Structure formats: structure tokens, C-alpha cells
């Protein structure tokens, strides 16, 4: 039993990272109506910047701040040059989706070009220690990931419900045309969303990188898990991304330990979950059900 509990806690720690990437996806999905396939790659690139800043001598927490700022700038620039020129993505989502797939490839290749293809070791933000409770041992790193996730959720709630920018973001997500007519600079608000999503991507990457070191494919699996998380939680729900992320984290950590077949296909539970949710409850646990008149 305590072994099972151990796996669950590890799963929650991993799930916190899926939740972070998921929240970034939700922020962009709500405001632009598209899934940003390049989300994980922008996070990977920003995490490389964290790594470089750390290598250059900055303590890891400071390096993370540098990576978040750089990530936000990269997200904003990519939006400006590759997404905004394609026009209203709510009316016509396909070009933007294709553009984000293009960005996925471009950012991945750029990272290989800059940092090479060899995996590099990455320090843990919360060190190597662990909290021992009876026979259960929980890495500080996992507890840290959950704590950071909680801070991010709180920050997002404050942003969306207490600030002018947050109100504008919700307004643009609901009705970009009326928001523009009311004086909201829609493209600048969307750009802020991309920057924000990229900044939290740097955090997610910094928690992912110590597991197997950092290389250009750092976030590939994480992105799939994050897709599963928001499919489960609902594409337009921040809380859904968090709950979905934690559930996916536990599921994908616990299942392979008891079912041998899954051990060899770590992504299988995530894909099964995506298919099952889309079949039986397409709006997810917390998402808005869209009723469309035809």
C-alpha cells in the first residue's frame, strides 16, 4: 500500500508539470481558439536558455527568471511574425494550427543547431533531498513542482479576475470583434497571452529537464501528456488543466508499474485517455460545452 502511495505522489509531481504546460495551452486556446502545437518546443527552447544562464554562473532560480523572460519574448515574437499575420484564428483556425506545427519543427531544429543534439545534465531546482514519511519518500523536487503549480494557479486567478489585462484577455477570448470596438488592442492582448504561456513553459521545462537531462526533444512526451490533461479537464478551463494534469500524472506513473504492457509504451495511457474523453465527453470535465447553431 505504501508503495502505491509512493507512486501516486511521484505521479502528482509529474502531473504538476503537465498541468503547467496544459495551462499554457489553455491560455492560448481560450484567446485564439487553436491548440498551440509549438507550446512544448518553446518551453524546451526557454529551458535551454535557463540551462545556459545557469552554466554561465547564475544560480538556478535566477537562471529560471532569465529563461522565463526570454521565453516570454520568444513567445511574443513568434506570435507577431508567424501567427498574427494569418488573421482571425477563431474564424479560420487551420492556418494558425499549421503555423504552430511549423513553429514546432523550426524551434526544435533551432535548439539542436544552437545547443547540439547531445543531452546535457540539468540540476534540480529543489535539490536532491527527500521528505521521509514512514516508508514513503517524496523528493523535494516533486513537492516543489506542486508548490510552484499552486503559485501559478493563484497568479492566473489574480491576473484573470483582478487585473485590467486579465479582463481584456477574457473579453478577447469571448468576442474579439466587440472587444476591439470597445477599445481593447486585441493583438497586443493576444501577444501577452503567448508571452505568458511561454514563460510558464520555461518553468515546466526546468522541472522536466533533470529527469533525463536536456536536449531538443525534452518536451515531446510532456506535450502529449499535457494534451491528454486538457482533453480530460476541458480545453478552455484552467482548473481543468490542473486537475487533468494531476490525474494524467498519476495514471501514467501508476499504470505501467502494475501493467507490464504499458511499461513498454509509456504514452499509451495518455492516448487512450484522449480518445476516451473525446468519444464520451468531448467538452472534458470542466470545459464549456459548445452548442452551435447550423
Amino acid at each position, binding site marked *: 500500500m505504501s508503495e502505491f502511495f509512493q507512486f501516486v505522489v511521484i505521479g502528482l509531481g509529474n502531473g504538476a508539470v503537465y498541468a503547467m504546460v496544459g495551462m499554457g495551452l489553455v491560455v492560448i486556446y481560450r484567446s485564439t481558439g487553436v491548440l498551440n502545437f509549438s507550446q512544448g518546443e518553446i518551453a524546451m527552447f526557454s529551458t535551454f536558455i535557463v540551462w545556459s544562464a545557469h552554466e554561465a554562473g547564475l544560480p538556478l532560480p535566477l537562471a529560471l527568471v532569465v529563461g522565463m523572460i526570454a521565453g516570454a519574448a520568444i513567445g511574443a515574437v513568434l506570435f507577431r511574425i508567424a501567427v498574427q499575420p494569418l488573421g482571425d484564428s477563431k474564424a479560420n483556425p487551420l492556418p494558425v494550427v499549421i503555423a504552430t506545427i511549423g513553429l514546432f519543427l523550426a524551434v526544435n531544429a533551432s535548439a539542436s543547431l544552437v545547443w547540439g543534439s547531445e543531452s546535457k545534465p540539468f540540476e534540480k531546482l529543489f535539490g536532491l533531498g527527500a521528505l521521509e514519511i514512514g516508508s514513503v519518500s517524496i523528493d523535494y523536487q516533486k513537492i516543489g513542482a506542486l508548490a510552484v503549480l499552486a503559485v501559478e494557479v493563484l497568479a492566473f486567478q489574480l491576473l484573470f479576475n483582478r487585473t*485590467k489585462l486579465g479582463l481584456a484577455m*477574457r*473579453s478577447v477570448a469571448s*468576442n474579439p470583434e*466587440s472587444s476591439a*470596438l470597445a*477599445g481593447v*488592442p486585441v493583438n497586443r492582448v493576444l501577444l501577452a497571452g503567448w508571452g505568458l504561456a511561454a514563460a510558464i513553459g520555461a518553468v515546466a521545462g526546468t522541472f522536466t529537464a533533470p529527469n533525463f537531462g536536456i536536449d531538443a526533444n525534452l518536451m515531446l512526451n510532456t506535450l502529449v501528456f499535457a494534451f491528454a490533461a486538457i482533453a480530460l479537464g476541458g480545453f478552455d478551463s484552467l482548473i481543468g488543466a490542473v486537475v487533468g494534469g494531476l490525474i494524467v500524472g498519476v495514471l501514467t506513473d501508476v499504470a505501467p508499474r502494475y501493467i507490464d504492457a504499458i511499461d513498454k509504451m509509456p504514452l499509451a495511457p495518455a492516448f487512450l485517455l484522449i480518445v476516451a474523453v473525446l468519444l464520451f465527453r468531448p467538452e472534458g470535465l470542466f470545459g464549456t460545452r459548445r452548442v452551435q447553431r447550423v
Partner: protein
Amino acid sequence: MSLLEVTDLSAGYGMVPVLRGISLHVEAGEAVVVLGANGAGKTTTLRAISAMLASTGTIRFDGVGMQRSSPDRMVRAGISHVPQGRGTIVDLTVEENLMIGAYVRTDDEVESDLARWFGVFPRLEERRNQVAGSMSGGEQQMLAIARAFMSRPRLILLDEPSLGLAPLVTREVFDRVAESVTETGTAVLLVEQNANLALDFATRGYVLESGSIVGEGSADELRGDESIRRAYLGG
């Protein structure tokens, strides 16, 4: 100098021209109506002025050229557009809609303006924490108008406020707008199919037909014009 001066304005959708070089002007504090049948280009006129739609020709507001502008810059300059079909932000509450209307403002009187428009539209105050999408058409129209006033505009573009509303509700909406513009000194450019109502509200008007202005005059002149009576006033 006119508050709004539009000269030789042309606009369309893709390759389809809708407006063919119209010119019109609105003086400060004046209420002007553009009459016209369905498809004459009334909505396109307003969308071109508020920069929702690319156009050629010149648009001068308060003497300043507004070419290649964007909707939010037009709001900053002092033009507020109430689009056809209300254009409320349905997922936001009534109060949040009004705060979005004040987005361009940096002064500290937003709260007192909120109270002011709640005074003019008491129904909105009753529903201030309700999401806009749950309100009736008339209430949403009033919300859209109050939101436009929240930016403290000098000109309001009003697109078919009567659309889809019961006659009594329409009358109430027009009465409230008339009171509000008199009180604030805001100019209005109204487009409307309901000519009787519009000519009671406006002091001057234009007649738009197939993207061109074919007539203009004071409200009384337009009301007395035989061809307009036949086309828009039902004999």
C-alpha cells in the same frame, strides 16, 4: 470644421465593392442618421469609419486624418461603435462589459461613470454581476450602448439599435440614447431601417442606396420628401 468628415469613402469585402465613394459629415453634438434599405451599405459605412474594415478615401476626426487606423485607436480618438446585433461580450458580467468599455481610459473617474450609467439604465445595475449573455435582447442593447458611453466618446456610431427588438423596447432604447447624448453632448451617427423612428431622433440625415448617397437634408426635409416617404416611411 466638422467633428467627423468623411470624403469619397469606398470599402468592400474582398473583391466586392459595397461603398462607392460616399461623403458625409457630423458636427459636434449633432445626431445624424443614414437611411437605407437592406444591403445599401449602412453597416459597411460604420465599419469603415471605425477601422474594422479597410477603406479608401479620407476620414478626418476633429481635423485629424485617421487613415490606416485600428478600432482601438479610433476609440482612443473618441469614436465608439455599437455594432449591429448588440456586440455585448456574452461571457463577461454586465459590470465587466462596462469596464471593458472604459479600457482606453486612464483617469480615475471610471467608478463614478459606472454609477452614472447604472443610474441611466437601472436594469443594468440590477444585473451587474450577471453574465451579459443571459439577458434579453433589449437589455443587451442597452448594455452595448452604456458600454460605448463608458469610453467618454465624442461620437457614437449606432448600428440598427432597433434590430430584433419589440417596438416598446426600441422606443425606450431611443429615449435613453436621446437623453444621454443631450446630457453628455455626444454626437451620434445612426444607421437605421426604421426611418420614422430615426428621423424623430436625428436632426439631419443621408439616404444611402447601393453604396452611394442619393439624398440628404434635415430630418424635416427628408420626412417630407416624396420618394423617401415611398421607399422608407411606408407611404
